[in-house]
């Protein structure tokens, strides 16, 4: 599909490039919620920063280093996946509507509430007049952004694009998800997320952005293929995984490229919710026993575009910038100290609320 040349991530862990990237120290959830470690944003003018919703701040904050890094070859467009980009501002605006009885309102919250505020603020601050879009398809919003980038690079092979996934968890949205039964009723620590046997997970948030193009030279990682499906049936999902591994991917992708790249790590979005654990177990069962399995939601929490965080982690692993920390490993062994195994092909599987599923294959660039 394409090559990732730079990646930035603001998450509940120490992942932002401005600080030292370190996943060995685990930042834990508080009240079943993982909040991002927000960096200072020295490059966003104060008067603009003040008005920005958190999702917009995180999105712009992760975009700026990539745009600066792109230098004389600015991206030809900006593609953002966000499910709830503006929901918090929407409820704030609604609060105004109710409190002031629909009269004399200020439009700030309304303008910030529009989900395309993230991609449009990035284009505004970087004067980018190219392709600009926002995918909001809940648990597959980021995957659609990835597919969009893949198509753009087929159409314009010499260009590069900024593609990312951004979602925040804030009070109002947290309340809605809580009422819907998305989070665990009992207080747990993210360290023990996978040991619980109860419905629900922990809340999370984050932003991960990628500078991508069609050129392998000096790339961090390659995104080989992507498959998505809506289904509540485990057998449909495992069949999809088998087809994916056999190279039966959408005809828009190069089939042989997937079949020839056997995964050496399975990185899954398992999230401690016992209602959907069987999907993950079913998919693990499809893969050869010797393929190690790792998990990431104890670091990111659950949110609709969390797979963007996983893609960032996968980039660091195949690029050799990070060693797989032992707390991520579910199946297989922790590599001995000093030995840094280099993963060649990492298979990602994410499942959002037992309905939206995706598989993504990430490869090392030799």
């Amino acid at each position, binding site marked *: 599909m394409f090559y990732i040349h730079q990646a930035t991530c603001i998450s509940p862990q120490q992942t932002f490039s401005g600080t030292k990237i370190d996943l060995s120290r685990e930042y834990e959830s508080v009240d079943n919620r993982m909040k991002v470690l927000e960096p200072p944003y020295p490059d966003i003018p104060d008067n603009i920063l003040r008005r920005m919703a958190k999702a917009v701040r995180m999105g712009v904050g992760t975009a700026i280093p990539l745009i600066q890094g792109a230098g004389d070859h600015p991206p030809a*467009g900006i593609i953002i996946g966000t*499910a*709830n980009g503006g*929901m918090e501002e*929407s*409820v704030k*605006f*609604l609060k105004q*509507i109710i409190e002031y*009885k*629909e*009269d004399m*309102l200020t*439009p700030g919250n*309304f*303008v910030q*509430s*529009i*989900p*395309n*505020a993230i*991609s*449009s*603020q990035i*284009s*505004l601050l970087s004067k*980018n*007049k*190219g*392709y*600009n*879009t*926002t*995918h*909001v*398809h*809940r648990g*597959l*919003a980021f995957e*659609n952004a990835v*597919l*969009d980038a*893949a*198509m753009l690079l*087929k*159409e314009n092979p010499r260009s590069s694009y900024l593609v990312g996934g951004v979602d925040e968890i804030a009070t*109002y949205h947290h*309340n*809605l998800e*809580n*009422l*819907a039964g998305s989070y665990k009723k009992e207080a747990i620590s993210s360290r023990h997320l996978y040991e619980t046997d109860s419905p629900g997970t922990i809340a999370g948030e984050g932003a991960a952005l990628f500078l991508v193009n069609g050129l392998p030279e000096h790339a961090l990682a390659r995104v080989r293929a992507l498959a*998505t*499906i*809506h*289904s509540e049936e485990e057998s449909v999902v495992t069949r999809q995984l088998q087809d994916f591994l056999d190279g039966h991917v*959408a*005809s*828009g992708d190069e089939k042989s490229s997937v079949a020839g790249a056997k995964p050496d790590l399975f990185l899954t979005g398992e999230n401690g919710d016992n209602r959907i654990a069987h999907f993950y177990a079913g998919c693990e069962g499809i893969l050869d026993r010797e393929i190690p399995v790792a998990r990431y939601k104890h670091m990111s929490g659950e949110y609709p575009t969390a797979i963007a965080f996983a893609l960032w982690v996968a980039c660091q692993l195949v690029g050799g910038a990070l060693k797989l920390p032992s707390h991520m490993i579910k199946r297989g062994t922790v590599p001995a100290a000093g030995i840094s195994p280099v993963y060649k092909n990492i298979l990602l599987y994410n499942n959002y609320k037992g*309905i939206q599923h995706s598989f993504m294959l990430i490869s090392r660039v030799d």
Partner: protein
Amino acid sequence: MSRVFITGMGVISAIGNTTAENHRALIAGNCGITKGANFPSRYAGVLPFGEILIPTSALQEQLRVSDTGVTRTTLLALHAFKEAIADAGLSPSQLMSPDTALVGATTVGGMCLMDQMFDDANKNTGGSDFLSSYDCASVNMFLQAHYKMKGLVNTINTACSSSSNAILYGARLIKNGFAKRVLVGGADSLSKFTINGFNALHILSPEICAPFDRDRQGLNLGEGAAFLVLEGEDVPRREEAPGHRKVYAELTGYCNTNDAYHPSSLSGDGPYLAMKGALQSAQLSEDRIDFINAHGTGTENNDEVESRVMLSLFGTPPPFSSAKSNIGHTLGAAGAVEAVYSILNLVHQEIYAGLNFKEPIPATGLRPVQAYQKMSLEHVMSNSFGFGGNCTSLIFSKA
């Protein structure tokens, strides 16, 4: 890369519940903008809106939807979707095929139920039936589940250009081999949320909107939905086969740009680049465009900027008008509803009047089409510009 054809259409708006009703209303120059009152807002009955005068419960009954948590936006989408698939003659198995994709757009989504959402978000209740219905994805999640679709599904929100981008994305899925046919469209319903948002920005007109008029006072919000069936190159070849499909038009050009100027007003660079880019992708020179379905919201900023851009790009612009004067601004549905109108222009070789125009904007002197007329048309451009500077132009061509 495959060519992309439109083989089915469905639309519901303030001037009609079907494509045929919309077509008749456009010919007659009907205006569906009223001071209606079927939605909860202090402005209901006060300001004019392009409201669909069917209560949500009646829509639910008509469509035989008994599921809980289904919003008005979703019902409008379903209404248009149903018409489009029937029009194209798509079978349930074709809809369930992995190479049939769905790309819908909305800006309001489930936020037409703002009062419930506010209560839920503040935990004033034990949780309503709509907890999973407030986001934009809820509309297409419903359609996917309802028709058991297995292909790619996406939801796009780029404000007022959302469903033009859904059309663009769907076409590219076909061209890049990710789908053989795609249901593309958009839906939005009137909401206290958007009404107050646009009102706070001082761009809601107290009168029925007058696109491109010197004395225009802003836009009227509307509601509606439209879906189109896009199919790849092998469609026309089926024409000899029994049960062949009609081909309404071809989508020949598209371009998405950003104005990169201001969160809620336009400079002109984005619209210029979008229109020019669409011409380039269709490999057409400016003089080949026979008609422009303008964005023409009736705001001070949009109409002047769009006029200036048409002048600088086309020199003498082709005939143009804005359907916002018939149905109001349907936001996330506008691009798809007006795509249907642009295709009706081509199919029937006719153009429809822009309503309420009296005097041109002094700086540009442009006059929209003011009377229904027959006209020979090969290529029609349709513009959609949105908040956040998101601009998209599409070009439809005679099949």
